[in-house]
């Protein structure tokens, strides 16, 4: 018994020891490899001709080129935002190549370069099998051009449009023109403006009136090619009464330079429509010395335009050196609902400043925010959120819960919630806690013969349960594994 107690206390001491925790967290990045495919792309640099060139490569109509140029000109006038709790070395926007694509443009999945498919295999997404088995349609973005789109036919039968953004601009210009930039205007913020100017590709989903999308839609983004920022643009429109669940997952190969990533995602939900958007983000976070890693600046916003509509964001963020991301919902329609469920894990020198905005405009609108932050190593993890009840938000309701878990002494966990209430019938509630894994919890598990590492993993899993529950099943499994891998050897 004594021996067990001794072991217990000594390992507890180890848990508190920075050096050991830091070392223990030195997990390897399993998705770190580079696919050798010949790339064509634009040389580094950004000016109007770059924007025109991207537009020309993609055979875009005149209005689209102008739209991009407007965004570019606006971007030039904008200062880089510095309000987030992030330490970022200045980014040289002229040193980045804004377009890269596989040399041979594939027409169908069968024509896809085997090396590319192999990449997906390594990532554990065998396109055909996975799609068939899981009933998931995958629109995989390999750098900047859609490689292949599966299940298009089945979706088409249901009337669902699911394709790459460049294709949508050519095939469905009216829809794109109507909705693109209507949720995130081109001049919304610095990174959204940059994205609007140079976005390369992304996904387009249109669910017509009354249609329930027959399967969960999924995109795997994968950043490849050195020095290529990837700027995807996603637009999802759900018409009256339509339902869709969309999954986004990311991994990127290991590299030493920081890669810039500035995505924009726009969701539009009309009357009684529901959109569920789930993300697992596992990009290269940099090594244990903070070298390399993805810079991830994302603008995600949903617009509950119709009454009784619902938009739900779920995210599991374990990757990227820098995460700057605030998936938001504008609750315009009466009785519309917005949700945000998030798990953000940072370690080593990772920095995350993430959260959400819920803008209540309509009557009896509801929003719920559940955010779980886990920081380890020397990382910094911030929740930044805004709940705004405008004058017309009669009877609106918000509930927010933010919890932070600290592992190690050199990390930081921060909470910056903003609440602005202008309607006396609205109710806003916010709660936040910060703590470490308690010695009592560890002792309880250890006393029952559970090894330390499993105990930490169990406790973290329990801490995140509320969010994982919201993920589609395949993602929930992946997310849980991701956290386990991330915390591998965190103790003992």
């Amino acid at each position: 018994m004594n021996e067990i107690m001794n072991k217990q206390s000594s390992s507890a001491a180890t848990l508190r020891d920075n050096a050991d925790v830091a070392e223990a967290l030195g997990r390897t990045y399993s998705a770190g490899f580079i696919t050798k495919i010949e790339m064509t792309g634009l040389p580094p640099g950004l000016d109007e001709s770059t924007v025109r060139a991207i537009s020309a490569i993609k055979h875009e109509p005149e209005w689209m080129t102008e739209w991009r140029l407007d965004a570019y000109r606006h971007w030039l006038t904008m200062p880089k935002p510095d309000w987030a709790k992030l330490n970022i070395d200045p980014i040289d926007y002229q040193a980045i190549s804004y377009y890269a694509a596989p040399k041979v443009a594939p027409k169908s999945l069968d024509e896809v370069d085997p090396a590319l498919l192999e990449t997906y295999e390594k990532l554990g997404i065998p396109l055909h099998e996975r799609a068939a088995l899981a009933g998931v349609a995958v629109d995989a973005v390999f750098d900047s051009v859609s490689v292949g789109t599966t299940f298009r036919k089945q979706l088409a039968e249901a009337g669902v449009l699911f394709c790459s953004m460049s294709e949508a601009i050519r095939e469905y210009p009216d829809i794109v023109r109507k909705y693109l930039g209507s949720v995130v205007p081109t001049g919304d913020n610095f990174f959204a403006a940059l994205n609007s100017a140079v976005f390369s590709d992304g996904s387009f989903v249109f669910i017509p009136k009354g249609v329930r999308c027959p399967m969960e839609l999924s995109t795997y983004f994968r950043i490849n090619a050195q020095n290529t920022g990837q700027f995807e643009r996603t637009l999802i429109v759900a018409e009256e009464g339509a339902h869709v669940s969309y999954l986004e997952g990311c991994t990127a190969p290991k590299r030493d330079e920081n890669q810039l990533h500035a995505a924009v995602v726009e969701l539009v939900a009309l009357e009684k429509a529901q959109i569920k958007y789930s993300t697992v983000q596992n990009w290269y976070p940099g090594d244990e010395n903070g070298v390399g890693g993805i810079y991830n600046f994302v603008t995600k916003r949903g617009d509950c335009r119709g009454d009784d509509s619902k938009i739900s964001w779920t995210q599991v963020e374990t990757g990227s050196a820098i995460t700057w991301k605030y998936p938001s919902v504008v609750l315009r329609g009466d009785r519309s609902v917005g949700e945000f469920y998030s798990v953000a894990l940072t370690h080593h020198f990772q920095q995350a400043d993430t959260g959400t905005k819920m803008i209540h405009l309509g009557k009896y609108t509801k929003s719920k925010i559940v955010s779980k932050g886990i920081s380890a190593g020397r990382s910094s993890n911030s929740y930044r959120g805004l709940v705004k009840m405008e004058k017309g938000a009669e009877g609106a309701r918000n509930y927010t819960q933010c919890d932070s878990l600290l592992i190690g002494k050199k990390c930081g966990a921060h909470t910056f919630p903003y609440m602005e209430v202008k309607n006396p019938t609205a109710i806003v509630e916010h709660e936040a806690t910060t703590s470490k894994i308690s010695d009592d919890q560890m002792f309880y598990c250890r006393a029952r013969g559970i090894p330390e590492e499993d105990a930490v993993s169990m406790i973290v899993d329990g801490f995140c349960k509320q969010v994982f529950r919201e993920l589609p099943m395949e993602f929930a499994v992946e997310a849980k594994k991701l956290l386990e891998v991330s915390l591998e050897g965190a103790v003992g």
Partner: protein
Amino acid sequence: MNQPASLPLVASLLDAPLPASGLGWLDAARRENRAAFAAGGLPDTRVEAWKYTALRGLAQRSFGSGDAAAQTRAVDASTLALPGVAGVRLVFVNGAFRADLSSLDELPAGLSLQPLSQALLGDAEPLRFALSRHYRDVGDAFAQINAASASDGVVLRVAAHTKIELPVQLVFVGAEAELAWHARNVIELGAGAELCLVEQHASSGQPTQLATLVSDIDVREGAQLHHVVLQDAGIGANLFRRNSLRLHARAQATLHVLELGGALVRHDLRAELIGDDAQLHTRGVFMPHGRQHIDTQLAIRHQALNTTSTSHWRGVANDRARGVFRGAIVVAPGADGSDANLSNKNLLLSPSAEIDTKPELEIYADEVQAAHGATVGQLDERSLFYLRSRGIPLAEARALLTAAFCRAVLDDLPNKALREHLSGLLIAQLPA
């Protein structure tokens, strides 16, 4: 951006000659701070700490500085009396010490108390640390102009291991004239000392004024401070208060704040728990109505081992008023064993009122318990139903529950007579 000095307010404040002290270091500090104010001007709403408090309207006004007639302004002495507070009293009218209204005759042993204007004539060296400070942060405008222009205020010291039985009352009165005044307090409690300090803000007449008050409060090892603030200034008062509180090892400070009056009121509390086992407990209620704007900013820094802070603040906004609250808690690296708790609950009583609240946590240590909560909403429907089912009319039930909501922050105020008086003021401020 405009040149700061082109704003009427900034220009008018810079217009006032600096008070001469005859002390080289103090004159230098005044010049430095004035230069900083001249260069930086007023913060706009892009400065995070001023996001919800716009100074645009105020910036267009101009105020003459200081009051030559301060010694002769009529102040009704009966308004200064507070139940449960009898004994030593210092009164400042438009920022200047008024001996005729004060009572300093029977200072208890161990208490040294004098107006700053007098303290500077004697040995000013102990004040040097506090008064030679340069305020450089963006958003420090009012501290800068205060440091440049304040020539009076309170210098209070309690000797080590001395318990001052009766509360010490500090009264700041804004009287009649439309002008700007500045006051500076330097307060220190020696090791093991105990003091109850009652700070009162009032107006005589309803003058439109700009007032700044900067207080430095040091609570030494094991000392205990009870600080009660009753801010009941007139409806024309623009009052900017900044309290810097330093708590040494085992020191305890309890703060009760009532924010009732004023037009534009800002209270910055910056507390640093720099000694192990220090404790800070803040309680407060802000009740803006009419077109009032009341902004409370807490910044509590845990910098030592096993420190504790609890903060419970309530807000009630009515009419076209706006209540702003920020409660930031920072747990510095190495401040293990910190226990921080903050709650801010608000009631919004009118469709044109607004509440903006922002609790913040910044945690850099892991052996920590930190939690905050904030709500904005209405009275609990079930409680209302309960009272109505027992025959209490709706309006009265509302009044009762609202009063109870506000009074909660006074529950642990030990001075019973004062507590009752303050709750009476709270209830009087509620809509009938």
